[in-house]
């Protein structure tokens, strides 16, 4: 009797174990399916974003093309500078002894492009600075950095918000100018230097090469660091001063530029010969 009860109990345990194993197998299968399903559900959730990624890429390229247009068009640069001249976050101004940053960081949106749909946005942030701080900012003296943000599927006006919102951004920089000065520099103006030379051969329009007169001019120019051997211009003007038969050379420098002027007098005209370097 006891043996019979034991055998029956053992059989019930085996049966329960079979049900338990099958339940475990089922649970394992469901877990695997759930895991795969969750992954794909996430993909499905992001599926519109994948389209938005391509749209955002195209939008940001649109902004870059507009930026290229501005950079290549002086009137557009001037217009953008003028429109934002009173905004110190967009048009930086130079200060003596306080250099502007090497890398310009745009923070403010200066223009937005019209787009085919209102869920698409192209914002262009910009910052301008003079290339040479000793000169005013203009289309021939500027540094600029654009940051274009293309946004797809975002709430309008908030380029980084919204379900399925995708943004892309590209930074582009350009400059134009002669001398790079990130801060105002005081230019030392040398005192004018005057060297006189008396032409020995009387009135003339232009010294012949190799003559003592030209040699004298060369020497006078060299004394003050002027390259005489450049261009020799002759300008004849009506003369109403005193009659003189002595021609004088006066060489003057100063103010950061160099001008050499030869003045000779004749009874009827004054001949000014300018030698530029």
């Amino acid at each position: 009797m006891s043996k019979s009860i034991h055998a029956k109990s053992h059989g019930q345990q085996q049966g329960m174990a079979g049900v338990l194993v099958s339940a475990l197998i089922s649970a394992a299968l469901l877990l695997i399916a759930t895991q795969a399903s969750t992954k794909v559900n996430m993909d499905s959730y992001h599926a519109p974003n994948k389209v938005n990624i391509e749209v955002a890429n195209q939008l940001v390229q649109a902004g870059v093309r507009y930026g290229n247009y501005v950079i290549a068009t002086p009137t557009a640069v001037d217009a953008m500078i003028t429109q934002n001249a009173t905004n110190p976050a967009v048009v930086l101004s130079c200060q003596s002894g306080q250099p502007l940053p090497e890398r310009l960081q745009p923070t403010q949106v200066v223009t937005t492009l019209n787009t085919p749909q209102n869920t698409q946005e192209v914002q262009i942030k910009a910052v301008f600075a003079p290339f040479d701080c000793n000169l005013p900012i203009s289309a021939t003296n500027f540094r600029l950095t654009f940051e274009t943000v293309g946004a797809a599927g975002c709430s309008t006006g908030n380029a980084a918000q919204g379900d399925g919102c995708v943004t892309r951004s590209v930074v582009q920089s350009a400059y134009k100018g002669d001398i790079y000065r990130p801060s105002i520099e005081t230019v030392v103006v040398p005192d004018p230097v005057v060297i006189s030379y008396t032409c020995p051969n009387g009135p003339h329009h232009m010294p012949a090469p190799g003559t003592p007169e030209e040699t004298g001019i060369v020497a006078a120019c060299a004394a003050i660091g002027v390259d005489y051997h450049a261009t020799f211009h002759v300008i004849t003007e009506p003369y109403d001063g005193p009659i003189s038969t002595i021609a004088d050379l006066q060489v003057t420098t100063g103010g950061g530029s160099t001008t050499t002027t030869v003045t000779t007098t004749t009874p009827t005209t004054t001949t000014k010969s300018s030698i530029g370097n």
Partner: protein
Amino acid sequence: MGARGFTLVEVVMTTLVLSLGVVLFGKATSNTLTASTDNAERQRVALMASDINNVMAARVASLPVTANQQAVINSLNGIMGELRTEATNAASSQGYRCEGNRPVMNGGTPNRNNSSTLFRSWTSGPPVCFEFVLLNNINTGFNGVWVETRISWLGLKNASDTPETIRVPGLISPL
């Protein structure tokens, strides 16, 4: 010590539990595969549209940067016409045609001789229909012109004949 078998109730219960697990697993796997394929197709189609916009931009890039907007529009009309022809030929070579931007299978054997390199590279994707739209009514402020490449296809998840469509815009200019 005779071995005792399982009772009928035990066998039925075990079979039911296991069957339920297998059925749910199969259903989940089927849904997963469908959604996964649909996602892959959507992504592939988005890339196609972006590629086509880049092809149009490459054509217009041959214009001088100072070209006026009308010259850009003319150039875009030219390339769009060529793309439409190529898309039609590509669809034919894969055995379908487009009716109202909905792919419809052709009868007979598809002609695999398609000379379009661009469209041949997409033969692994779903049958798609292209639409190229010039949006020159949008003011761009320079010589650039907006275009929109629209691609329609029949998604696996969608049981109806209504095609899914994506629209990818592009601002095309010589710069």
